[in-house]
């Protein structure tokens, strides 16, 4: 919870204020800070604070002698450490990549609303923030050099006075996590784009989000947000990011595929300029170009812009259009209608529907129904619960597309299945079911 994190942070800052006196935790050892040994007798009458009084090298040497350390065995430089006035500070542990990010002058941002776990974002990565407690005392000391640093000095001094800036007994640690992007889709679905003539466009009461707005509320780095906007086929219209209403997106696609058919073009060489010319009277040019970008790959040949349309993407969208009209379909009938509905020359295949639809080969007749990965919950346990409510036992091949996005860095779907599911063998086939009873 960001609020709690905020409180902890504030408490940490207060705790680091030196004038509080002392920190109490497991006392492994009790140390007393007192005026240094040899001069103890002489100092008894002086003020205990000793502020403004600097130790001299002679005093340090005297202490060394009393401690029976031989100066010959030590580096010539000693450091005298003193507590400073005390300032609130806190420690954040950073991996080398993040250090470099900061050193280069870029910033890190901590994001989260009251009901969300706080995350820290760099330009392209997202991390969970956790407070790590330690029973040890951590002192931050500016100007305190290590032997290696001293060795590099041409003329190291015989005494360095270092003032302790502050102390802490906890620090922030980071763990890389998946960006929380489901919120992005949810926000953009609040007001889908249905075309320029839709009454929604005139009414300014509907929610609209600019890039800045999204950066403020989505718990992900900028690059991760931009990448996901491309996945969602979102379009920046009038400075705001919009997801197209599915029927409108299909309308645009149909214009394009029909034009390709009537002009007898190859799907791998669709000229942009002629598309805009022919379809411009029907739909805004930006929308036609957006459709081509979503369903094809842009390239330039002899100075002209062309698009290579993706059969996989077009077949998949066509399937979604068919499947969303009913709860389930007879598989054989669906496959026939689907093949007839796609542009001539494209070949449909069930592989194109991973993460979009699920086939049930155990029912008679075999059926297929819509099941979209991005309609499922974002949390790991919740996602598995939802999947097991749909179907009790899954093969790895069937479930993998629906848990692929849960994988962290270097994590496989296999590892997730081991953690969240129970494996058994049924009719010679390995299947996975829930570890707990699913309601």
């Amino acid at each position, binding site marked *: 919870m960001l609020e709690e994190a905020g409180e902890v942070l504030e408490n940490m800052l207060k705790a680091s204020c*030196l*004038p509080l*006196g*002392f*920190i109490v*935790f497991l*006392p*492994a*050892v009790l*140390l*007393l*800070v*007192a005026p*240094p040994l*040899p001069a*103890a*007798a002489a100092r008894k009458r002086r003020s*205990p*604070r000793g502020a403004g009084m600097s130790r001299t090298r002679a005093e*340090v040497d*005297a202490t*060394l002698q*009393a*401690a*029976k*350390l031989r100066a010959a*065995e*030590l*580096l010539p*430089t000693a450091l*005298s*450490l*003193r*507590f*400073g*006035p*005390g300032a*609130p*500070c806190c*420690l*954040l*542990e*950073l991996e080398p990549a993040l250090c470099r990010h*900061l*050193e280069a*002058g870029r*910033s890190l*941002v*901590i994001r*989260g*609303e009251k009901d969300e776990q706080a995350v820290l974002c760099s330009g392209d990565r997202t991390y969970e923030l956790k407070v790590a407690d330690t029973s*040890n*005392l951590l*002192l*931050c*000391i*500016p100007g*305190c050099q290590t032997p290696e640093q001293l060795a590099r000095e041409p003329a190291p001094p015989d005494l360095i006075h270092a003032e302790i*800036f*502050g102390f802490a007994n906890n620090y922030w640690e980071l763990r890389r996590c998946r960006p929380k992007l489901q919120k992005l889709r949810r926000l953009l679905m609040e007001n889908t784009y249905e075309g320029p003539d839709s009454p929604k466009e005139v009414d300014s009461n509907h929610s609209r989000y600019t890039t800045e707005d999204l950066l403020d509320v989505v718990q992900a780095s900028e690059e991760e947000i931009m990448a996901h906007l491309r996945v969602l086929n979102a379009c920046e219209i009038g400075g705001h990011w919009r997801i197209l209403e599915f029927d409108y997106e299909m309308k645009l696609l149909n214009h394009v595929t029909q034009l390709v058919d009537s002009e007898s073009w190859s799907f791998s060489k669709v000229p942009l300029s002629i598309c805009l010319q022919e379809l411009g009277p029907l739909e805004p040019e930006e929308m036609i170009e957006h459709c081509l970008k979503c369903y094809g790959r842009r390239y330039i040949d002899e100075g002209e812009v062309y698009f290579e349309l993706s059969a996989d993407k077009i077949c998949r969208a066509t399937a979604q259009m068919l499947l969303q009209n009913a709860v389930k379909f007879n598989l054989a009938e669906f496959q026939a209608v689907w093949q007839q509905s796609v542009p001539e020359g494209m070949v449909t295949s069930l592989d194109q529907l991973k993460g979009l639809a699920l086939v049930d080969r155990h029912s008679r007749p075999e059926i297929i129904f819509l099941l979209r990965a991005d309609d499922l919950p974002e949390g790991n346990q919740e996602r598995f619960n939802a999947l097991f409510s749909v179907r009790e036992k899954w093969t790895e091949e069937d479930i993998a597309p629906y848990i692929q996005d849960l994988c962290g860095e270097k994590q496989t779907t296999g590892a997730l299945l081991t953690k969240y599911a129970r494996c058994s063998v049924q009719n010679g086939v390995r299947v996975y079911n829930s570890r707990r009873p699913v309601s």
Partner: protein
Amino acid sequence: MEKIWEITRAEGLAEWVLMELQGEIEARYSTGLAGNLLGDLHYPTEGIPVLIVGQHILQGEIIHLEKSFVVLVKHTPREQDCDELGHQTGTTRYLVTALIKHKILFKTRPKPIITNVPKKV
């Protein structure tokens, strides 16, 4: 209002050292620790760093940190950071004032220093 904290580096990014101690530190007098000496730190030419605190001597080790620490200091907003109504803008800023790549860890039991005659300086 959503809470956003922005962390950026301060103008000069210094390198500090972290010293890690087990236990508590108390001031002999109840005036608090501020301004008081902690002790002397020595580096043997070969061997372990030594810290003399009061009447104890501690032996430690220097550890190069795999993951560095940064020290964050809250940045107090100036006049310009408030909007027309005088409310602070939604972003709280923390400045990274220092980078810590090494720590000196003292985890062994301190040994008392026994003196017979305090040497007069």
